[in-house]
């Protein structure tokens, strides 16, 4: 069952500074379908629009971010939530923590520094389950921490007394306490060390295996996604350029950008030369015409400079947006 459907979303930042109108096309015509019980990885560099995409999915759309076109549909079986333009009307459905939760990047600035972890849990539970007794609260929290393998002592500590990894695990505990259907994680481990990163990701994987929920994991680190994701979407300059099963992405990348990304990963035990991608990422305020990767692409053709390729299926479950693999552009055949 498709639990999350993203349909041709265009989300731009409209900035009006000193009379100058600027538009940053952070998410431009992105369509994705994410299934139940899968781990979907979104890979991309900084400022490619991946965090904006997460904002749109989680329904936290505040100016200057505006949805120009398209919609996001959650389908939980008994209930659907719409975000975006529905029949010409802007609609932002209420996405609740019980259905969709979010694990942010910097755990340091997420937890309230003057509250004990126990009070942070109380706050969250109280705002969703108003009639619950205090003893039941305590039991629920303890049971939940136990099931995640966290020590109960953390409840009586302040966030600054916890190590970075422990803090991130507390946040994961907060995000999973209602057993949500969809968990969004935006670079959950990029501030952590390798050993701690492994334990945090293993925890996320265990939760996913047990609850059969959907996990959407955003990361710039392809090696992490190789270890945890079922499918990967590669994002470049506001567009999804390739979506495929994790095995296909690593063994048979088709978009030139993906090829570069895979080939530039250094591996322990291999000292052969790794090449970096020439050039640098474009500014989203003024993206290049046509395919946005064309200024850095070694296989650039004339058509790439004029038209933007459409993400279309080239093999089973393998979607690529490149004129090398298909002739479809976003505004019809060329």
């Amino acid at each position, binding site marked *: 069952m498709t639990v999350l459907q993203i349909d041709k979303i265009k989300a731009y930042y409209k900035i009006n500074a000193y009379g100058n109108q600027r538009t940053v096309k952070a998410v431009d015509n992105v369509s994705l379908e994410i299934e139940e019980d899968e781990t979907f990885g979104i890979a991309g560099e900084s400022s490619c629009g991946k965090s904006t995409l997460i904002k749109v999915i989680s329904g936290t759309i505040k100016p200057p971010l505006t949805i120009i076109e398209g919609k996001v549909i959650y389908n939980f079986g008994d209930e659907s939530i719409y975000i975006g333009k529905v029949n010409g009307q802007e609609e932002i459905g209420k996405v609740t923590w019980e259905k969709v939760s979010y694990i942010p990047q910097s755990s340091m600035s997420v937890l309230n520094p003057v509250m004990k972890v126990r009070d942070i849990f109380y706050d969250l539970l109280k705002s969703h389950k108003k009639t619950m007794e205090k003893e039941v609260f305590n039991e629920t929290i303890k049971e939940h921490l136990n099931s995640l393998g966290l020590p109960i002592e953390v409840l009586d500590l302040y966030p600054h007394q916890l190590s970075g990894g422990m803090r991130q695990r507390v946040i994961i505990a907060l995000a999973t306490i209602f057993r949500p259907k969809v968990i969004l994680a935006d670079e959950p481990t990029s501030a952590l060390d*390798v050993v701690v990163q492994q334990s945090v990701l293993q925890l996320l994987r265990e939760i996913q295996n047990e609850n059969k929920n959907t996990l959407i994991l955003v990361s710039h680190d392809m090696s992490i996604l*190789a270890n945890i994701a079922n499918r990967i979407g590669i994002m470049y300059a506001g567009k999804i350029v390739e979506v495929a099963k994790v095995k296909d992405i690593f063994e048979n990348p088709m978009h030139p950008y993906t090829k570069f990304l895979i080939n530039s990963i250094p591996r322990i035990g291999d000292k052969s030369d790794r090449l970096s991608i020439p050039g640098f990422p474009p500014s989203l305020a003024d993206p290049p015409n046509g395919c946005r990767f064309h200024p850095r692409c070694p296989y650039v053709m004339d058509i790439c400079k004029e038209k933007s390729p459409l993400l279309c299926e080239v093999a089973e479950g393998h979607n690529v947006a490149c004129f090398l693999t298909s002739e479809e552009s976003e505004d019809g055949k060329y």
Partner: protein
Amino acid sequence: MENTEKLLTVKDITKVFTRGSLLSRISFTAVNNVSFEIEANKPEIFAIVGESGSGKTTLARIILHLIEPTSGQILYRGKDITKIKSKRDRIEFMSTVQPIFQNPFETFNPLKRVDSYLYETALNYKITNKSNLERFIADILNSVGLSIEEVKGRYLHEFSGGQIQRLSVARALIVRPSLLVADEPVSMLDVSLRMSIVNLFKELKNDQNVSIIYITHDLATAYYISDRIAIMFRGDVVELGPVEAVLARPLHPYTRVLKEAVPEPTPTQKWGGKINFSAIEIEEFSRVGCKFAGRCQSVMEICKKAEPKYSSVDNRMVKCWLYK
């Protein structure tokens, strides 16, 4: 004068930070008895790897003489740098040892033209005179893969992270240093730009004979560029040796844990096993005996009582009771 063949000798460096008032003083050992050497005639890339809080940045700052060590010596070409007092000696030292910092956007003042840093450095250190200045800077920029037309008269916000990090490497190269101390130089950069900086370091070593101390938490890039590696844990160097040997056959249990935690970019090989780690970091710093004892899988009685000594096992140093 036996030390003249050594570019840098780090000898028993210890740094203890204290905080609190006179009555309730808490001391905290950030770097504990670290020693290593870098040869003068053979340029090399020496990686220092460890998690955050392992003391690697403190060690870098001591080598750069930005902070004083509590005890120990740092000899640069046989001269003790902790005894540098006069400005002349300091300039002499800075013209051979140069830093590269982590966040390229904090290295430069956003209100100043970036190229002014290059001109000022060249003039302050009297590397070249005004008439040759422009050509000299152009040559330096070429060596890091930038052109003077790209850089001239522009401000910080007009560059990408990779370009700025190249500029800070260029600034460090102006004085023709023989040693660069790079503290997490690529951790703030995008994946697609990261390898270009790492490859630049490799070129500098091969073409310009610059030795580099490369501090990082990323084992994969450390393996890719470095010749020798030191693994740090809570202030101690627990293992030191040639990078191929250390990472192919790790001896210290911590190195093993660290290596296994690196995600492999192959979807068919996924992580296995469980790892335990401490809830509160401060416990590990104040631990008596081996600081890794609380997490170590092959922990013995002696590990909890006495600090292990360095022992030399096939060409490398290991600080562990398993190899005494």
